[in-house]
């Protein structure tokens, strides 16, 4: 390379000129990376906290307590099992505070969550998809400009407000009179109202993300169909929908994931009575509702009730994680299609 460098005093471009500035740059880079790693740490912490305390639900000590005890005594400490995994997974009763025979069958809570999620999907998916089609294919620029942000406001309303809406309006004003026509009665807390409000609050997720996918469909495809004499209806259903299906599907997954984790609206709307049922008029307790209502009665640390919060939280977390991973996967594939 350059041999002149040793003889020449140098044109002032070597490291020492801006050394202080570069040192600061490297320091800042490290600080920023540190901040970034906190996001990874958060995920790890969620896993560790949930797993550690779930261990403490099944046994008489959390995993970390057991580990510390074993290390300090230099023996593998024994563990007393409190809850059988089979009971947790397969028992059909959830009655943690029952005096004589407490039972922890997560099925009861999971079924309530699934029931409401499915019901909500029946509201948000058709309405959200139709709204997306309207915004993308039919609405004028002006209409779209006002309609889309208004729909998105629905997603900005705190969920507690939806819960209030469910008990003070949806159940008594919308549902009860209609059901009474059919001779059905409905309590203050019921699955149906939870389905309705969770459905409403997830409409904007479906509409907004689906619409983005529909608008990404190139106009060439539409024009091709129009040139063949297709009506707008035919173009919408046979060209736009199939071409944007993966994006639309991703929006469904996202809405479902959101519905699974939804807490305050379902706690107020669906109630706090664990019931294994598919009856939409019944009062049930979802996983999330169990957590907040149990916290209300401040369960003591280490008690089986306290530890059960984490066991339920772990199941909830895993369910949403699976939904998020599916969403991730679809989004990645969908991106490739239009590149």
């Amino acid at each position: 390379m350059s041999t002149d460098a040793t003889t020449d005093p140098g044109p002032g471009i070597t490291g020492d000129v801006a050394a202080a500035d570069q040192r600061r740059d490297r320091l800042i880079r490290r600080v920023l990376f540190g901040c970034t790693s906190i996001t990874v740490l958060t995920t790890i912490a969620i896993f560790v906290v949930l797993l550690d305390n779930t261990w403490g639900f099944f046994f008489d000590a959390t995993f970390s307590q057991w580990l510390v005890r074993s290390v300090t005594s230099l023996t593998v400490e024994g563990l007393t099992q409190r809850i059988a995994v089979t009971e947790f997974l397969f028992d059909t009763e959830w009655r943690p505070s029952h005096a004589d025979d407490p039972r922890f069958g997560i099925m009861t809570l999971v079924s309530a969550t699934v029931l409401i999620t499915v019901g909500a999907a029946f509201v948000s998916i058709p309405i959200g998809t139709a709204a997306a089609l309207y915004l993308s294919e039919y609405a004028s620029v002006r209409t779209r400009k006002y309609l889309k942000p208004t729909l998105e406001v629905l997603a900005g309303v705190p969920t507690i407000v939806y819960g209030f809406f469910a008990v003070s309006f949806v159940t008594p004003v919308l549902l009860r009179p209609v059901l009474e026509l059919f001779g059905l009665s409905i309590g203050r807390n019921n699955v149906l109202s939870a389905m309705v409000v969770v459905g409403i609050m997830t409409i904007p997720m479906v509409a907004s993300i689906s619409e983005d996918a529909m608008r990404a469909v190139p106009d060439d495809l539409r024009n091709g169909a129009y040139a063949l004499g297709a009506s707008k209806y035919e173009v919408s259903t046979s060209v736009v929908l199939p071409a944007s299906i993966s994006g639309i599907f991703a929006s469904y997954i996202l809405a479902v994931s959101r519905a699974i984790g939804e807490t305050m609206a379902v706690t107020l709307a669906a109630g706090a009575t664990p019931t294994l049922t598919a009856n939409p008029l019944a009062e049930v307790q979802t996983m999330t509702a169990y957590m907040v209502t149990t916290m209300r009665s401040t369960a003591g640390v280490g008690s089986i009730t306290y530890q059960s919060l984490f066991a339920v939280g772990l199941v909830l977390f895993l369910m949403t994680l699976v939904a998020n991973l599916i969403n991730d996967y679809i989004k990645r594939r969908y991106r490739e299609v239009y590149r």
Partner: protein
Amino acid sequence: MATVSTDTDSGVLSDADLRWVKRKEVLFHATLFLASVFGVAMLGLLVFDVLFETAVGVLVLGIDVTTFLTSGASRDWERAGFLPAIIGSVWLVLLTLIFSFFLGVSTATYLEEYAPNTRTVRLIEANLTNLAGVPSVVYGLLALGVFVNGLRLGSILLAGSIALALLVVPIVIVASQEALRAVPSGVRDGSLATGATRWQTVRGVVLPAALPGIVTGTILALARAIGETAPLIMVGAVLQARQTPDPFSLFGSMPTMIYYWAFRPITEFHNLAALGILVLLTILVGMYGVAFFVRNRYERRL
């Protein structure tokens, strides 16, 4: 196309066919329109419901708005108030802002301005999207396990704000990343070619240009935080907020107070809840207003 769009021309299709096509088209259009309006109608009903219940509370039951805004929780609905809850929420939002803004903007800056396009970085970004999808109640459990009981902070306001901050950090990051990406690369090149280091470029040119977008995104994230209930209940928020909290005391907040009132069987409390919701929604509208003002006023083309 001409054959389809006019009634008189029936060169290809018969009139009956055409009429069916048109009818289907009108029906479809109407269905889609109604679906779009459904959400707006529900929003209208929701606001109406809150206003109606508030009006009943104030006009029929005689809830005193001044008492409501100046006193704390009470067993007696006529003397119950919202002030400690409002103060609690203000504290929570302030602390959440402090924790999430620095962390979020730093992370976004690293990812957009520094990070090489490696596997690790792609993994970090994938992790971020997943974090954004974690239910808020789980963040509450995290704070309960780590801060409230792990570090034995107790159910203090600080722990609640940490839960909220962790919850909204992914939102702040994504918003900041978008704002940084919107800064044209020519501006970065110009700075680097002038002999600025990466950091001098980021601090001197890129961040100032992205700031309006970052601020808007942060306000929207805080708007999300102020309405969050579940994480606060999980860290052990006091549902009946009687005393004005500080960061190291037990605390209540607007949404937890609303939850408590809405949960009570005595219906007068529901009207209190409605009044509380009205206060919360008013604050939210104010925050959205500020966010849009910042975006329109300061965000300029580059």
